[in-house]
């Protein structure tokens, strides 16, 4: 099946179609570096999904793949710089010990490789003709001073948990915008790694001397009521959009971001559909506690599902946006 021939034939029917396909075509052209071009061209269902996406774009899904990838890269760069600072601080080794230091180094390696995969010279964004964002740093001074980020290993682990759990929620929140492209599978394969990171960081916290027995590898309902600065992550607070450093929160909240020459937009926050809290116990209108025959506890029902976040929530000053400088 000749994919491009079909596109051309469609163009005769609908002259506007090619315009709608522009970003998708770019994705297709980039598949050499990301996936198997021939496999996708030969798959009618994927082509069908591509069509769906082109038309779905009419009904309000405006984000292009480059926007989504730059958004992901922003978070990967934030994590990368965060772990750089943790490693430089040395507490993972001096306080945590060899196993902890090895784990932090391993996670940092993954973040490095995700940064390269998305934003590198031959990475996904450049392959699509976009400009990767750069220069994003972790702003340690945004952590409340009483938590002593620079000298308190437990605070560093807490922030790591917040960042990893946020990453999981962020990828989940935008995966559907990549429907019908091979970039979706790549995003999913990063997403599950972030979840493994989050679980291990939580394991590291749970095995610290004097740790709360409430810390689990998964997000519990109790996390939604956790102490600051973690609590906002697990609820669905939305305050003021991104607030780099100490600047006054802009009004209205921005949906356009520019870092190091790369820029991207995110969908406007939809106040009518705030993302579920992590203690959510209803999925797809199924009340997990009561509707499944055997009653389950709220804790188990909430932990069995992770939740997504809207991009505006992720980049909110109360979450990752507040940690960017």
């Amino acid at each position, binding site marked *: *099946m*000749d994919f491009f021939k*079909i596109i051309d*034939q469609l163009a005769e*029917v609908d002259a506007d179609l090619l315009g709608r396909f522009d970003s998708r075509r770019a994705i297709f052209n980039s598949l050499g570096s990301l996936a198997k071009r021939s496999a996708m061209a030969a798959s*009618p*269902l994927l082509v*069908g*999904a591509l*069509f*769906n996406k082109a*038309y*779905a774009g009419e009904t309000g899904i405006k984000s292009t793949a480059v926007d989504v990838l730059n958004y992901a890269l922003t978070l990967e760069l934030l994590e990368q710089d965060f772990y750089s600072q943790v490693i430089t601080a040395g507490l993972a080794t001096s306080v945590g010990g060899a*196993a902890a230091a090895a*784990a932090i180094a*391993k996670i940092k*390696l*993954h973040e490095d*490789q995700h940064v*390269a*995969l998305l934003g590198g010279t031959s990475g996904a964004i450049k392959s699509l003709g976009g400009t990767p964002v750069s220069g994003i740093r972790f702003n340690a001074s945004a952590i409340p001073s009483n938590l002593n980020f620079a000298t308190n290993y437990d605070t560093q682990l807490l922030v790591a948990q917040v960042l990893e759990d946020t990453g999981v929620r962020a990828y*989940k*929140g935008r*995966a*559907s915008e990549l429907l019908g492209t091979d970039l*979706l*599978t*790549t995003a*999913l*394969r*990063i997403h*599950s*790694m972030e*979840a*493994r*990171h*989050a*679980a*291990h960081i939580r*394991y590291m916290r*749970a095995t610290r001397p004097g740790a709360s027995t409430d810390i*689990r*590898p*998964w997000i519990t309902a109790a996390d939604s009521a956790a102490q600051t600065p973690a609590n906002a992550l697990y609820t669905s607070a939305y305050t003021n959009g991104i607030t780099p450093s100490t600047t006054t929160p802009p009004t209205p909240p921005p949906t356009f971001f520019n870092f190091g020459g790369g820029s991207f937009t995110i969908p406007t926050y939809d106040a009518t*559909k705030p993302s579920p809290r992590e203690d*959510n116990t*209803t*999925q*797809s*209108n*199924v009340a997990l506690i009561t*509707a*499944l*025959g*055997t009653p*389950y*506890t709220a804790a188990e029902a909430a932990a*069995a599902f992770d*939740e*997504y976040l809207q991009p505006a929530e992720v980049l909110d000053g109360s979450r990752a946006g507040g940690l960017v400088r």
Partner: protein
Amino acid sequence: MSDNLQPRGADDATFAQPLYTPIKRRSFFMYAGATAGATALVLAGCSKDSDPVTTSNLINVGSGDTGVLNYAYALEQLEAGFYTALRDGAYYKGLATTSAERQILDDLYYHEVIHREFFKAAITSGRISDSLKPDFSKIDFSSRTSVLGAAKAFEDLGVAAYNGAGQYITSPLYLTLAGKIVSVEARHAAIIRDLVQEGSFIDNSVVTLTTANASASASGAGPASSSVERSMTPNEVTAAANAYLADGSKIDASGLK
């Protein structure tokens, strides 16, 4: 984005008969039908969301979004069955009730049973059997090594299966739902691996780290040094999963493509 997969009851038809609902699918058919070379496309499109059928003793999960959901349901049945059997086994029963390991295994049991029961409640039309019969005769439930090794295999398999099947979903809501589950499976995999050997929450067997590892280089391999987790095709997954399903309960997911 709505938190809801779909309303239950009144809109059951949307689950089995997507042609009647999403406008974008109607567009797809209209335009596909207008092209001379699109016969294969139309046929493939029409075969979506077929009801599951049993052929040659295999339970076919079907195709389209319902097929993916059935596929996930089958794997969740397998995992839930495993943890149910585990909790009846000597190794688990020998753990102190306050031990961290026992608490973790309890949590995993509850999560997987909830996943299973959720799919049972949510797939209102075209659902496969609710009572797939497992075959865990290869697992020694009195041995920590055997129990945790099997748990690790099941959890890693689950993550790779979801990662590989996301591309076959057409509904954004179902994709998000799968995402909500797969990250919990990944958390399970990580902690089980840490119980087997601390720090092994990720290694080259499931992620392409510095080199593409052989066991991660099936169709789901990522480029070396890309740090993406393994994904597996439905056929690769069922080949592994069917080893733990009894005759008559083995699944065929070849309709997902």
